[in-house]
């Protein structure tokens, strides 16, 4: 008799470990040897341009699509988890429900095989704000309401890990803020949150860590601050009456200097403190010295340039 021993993750509990994920559609590689780890206690954002393979990756992780590699949740493959909704909550598509089965019955149906009591169904309906329409047929639900029902399903088993594909899709600004607070609170409880989104401003407010992919391959797996800081769009801005002399001194030190209006210099490849020290040592008056941090959008566009599956043209080109 073979004794099955659960694999223990070296990262601790509630960790998602994806190793060597791969998926091809004909000759096109949608996901290419992708490996990453999603840690508990933080919100991990999953970013990539359209067609980068985010949704395919999530489906591969859950054994919904067949491909290469393995993913473990707290040391177990998804299909080997008994009553998986109590361990991993999943939202892949909004409006994935039968149009005439009430919201409450939809959740009861999913709860039944996972031995989740009906009381919990009412709790999550209240949590996502759908109590008033719990016994209504969801065929008239808006995209946002459908998304809330999908979120309710993901949270049904009060799982330690949640995976959400574009959870903010269709939500109004209040809904997005509610979702952000919910996911942050979830992570603060030591749970694992892995969410994809194309709303970069939203992701900048939500995520602590990023996994960025392009054309199915890993581009970055790091804290969001580090991802933004390493962008070439992060620069030091200095304004001084001696800007020509400072320009020469910095250029001689290999700093990339760009002249900006109003006597400003934009510097990359040097820390703010080093610029201040240099100006002080050279006896230069400085009227402004700041670090201009790149936005997540700038950092993302830079990281994914050349890794876009689909690129639009411009109207000017048609003339």
């Amino acid at each position, binding site marked *: 008799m073979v004794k099955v021993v659960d694999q223990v993750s070296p990262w601790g509990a509630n960790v998602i470990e994806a190793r060597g994920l791969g998926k091809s559609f004909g000759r096109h590689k949608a996901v290419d040897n992708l490996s990453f780890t999603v840690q508990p206690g933080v919100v991990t954002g999953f970013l990539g341009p359209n067609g980068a393979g985010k949704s395919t990756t999530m489906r591969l992780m859950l054994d919904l699509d067949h491909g290469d590699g393995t993913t473990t949740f707290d040391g177990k493959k998804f299909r080997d*988890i008994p009553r998986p909704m109590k361990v991993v909550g999943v939202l892949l598509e909004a409006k994935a429900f039968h149009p005439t089965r009430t919201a409450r019955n939809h959740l009861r149906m999913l709860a039944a095989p996972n031995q989740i009591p009906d009381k919990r169904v009412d709790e999550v309906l209240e949590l996502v704000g759908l109590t008033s329409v719990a016994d209504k047929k969801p065929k008239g639900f808006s995209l946002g309401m459908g998304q809330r029902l999908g979120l309710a399903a993901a949270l049904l088993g009060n799982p330690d890990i949640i995976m959400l594909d574009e959870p903010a899709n269709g939500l109004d600004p209040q809904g997005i803020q509610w979702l952000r607070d919910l996911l942050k609170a979830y992570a603060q409880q030591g749970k694992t949150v892995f969410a994809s989104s194309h709303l970069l401003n939203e992701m900048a407010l939500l995520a602590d860590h990023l996994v960025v992919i392009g054309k199915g391959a890993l581009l970055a797996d790091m804290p969001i601050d580090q991802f933004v800081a390493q962008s070439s769009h992060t620069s030091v801005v200095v304004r001084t009456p001696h800007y020509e002399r400072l320009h020469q001194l910095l250029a001689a030190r290999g700093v990339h200097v760009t002249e900006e209006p109003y006597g400003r210099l934009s510097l990359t490849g040097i820390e703010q403190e080093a610029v201040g020290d240099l100006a002080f040592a050279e006896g230069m008056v400085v009227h402004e010295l700041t670090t201009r941090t790149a936005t997540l959008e700038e950092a993302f566009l830079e990281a994914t340039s050349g890794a876009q599956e689909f690129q639009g043209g411009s109207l000017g080109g048609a003339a």
Partner: protein
Amino acid sequence: MSDALRYEWVRIRTLRSTWWLTGLSLLASGALGLTALGGDGPMTTRDYAYGLVGGPVAIFVLLMSVLLGMIGVFSLGHEYRYQTMRPTLGAIPRRSTLMSAKVLVVVLYVGLVGLVCLVARYVVMLIILGNKLTDLGLFPHQLGRIWFGALVYPIVFALTGLALAGLFRSVPTAIVFTIVMPVIVEGIVKALLNIGDISILKNIGKLLPFTAGTQIMRYTGDTDFNASEYPSPWVGGLIFAVFMGILLSLCWVLFEKRDA
């Protein structure tokens, strides 16, 4: 497995279509063609058989099969039509377990409703015919097989619908196939094969699955009945069951292999 059965039971009973299909089947069991039984002549086994299944072509059982067959089609077809397959596999990740539960619940539900419909039909016949029916006994000559066939045919039909919905991953295609094949296509094919009186073509005609399947509930003692045109009752039932078995096996294999 019990977890998956729990899911399927909640799924099937929270669909309105389940209840109106069940209601229509029950309605048909009491309403279809039974008034013709109220004649003055003596009751025969043939009358009993035709009354139970709906004449020589078993129209009542066929109608009941089409109605209850939709429950089989919806069992898998709705998962694709409304994109609930992924949430479902998120709740029950083992596909074989899910498929087993779907098959089992369809067999049990259609079997139970089919039995209730047949019993209801018998009771209506009893009300109309009284002693003339009871004098024949419950299972006279051939009627045991016919009762069995009328019970099994809708089950096999529903499983065929489930398999087609899984193969095509489309409810409309599966519905069209399950209605058009037995009602129109097989009739045309059989008529074409009978042109020219070539025995080999006639024998091929015996293999048409839905038509062959109806033989299991066919009363063969009728003077009009031409036995050479049809397979024997048990062989006919077997042909239909094998046809369903092949489709279901193919569906099962693809269900395991395809992306959800």
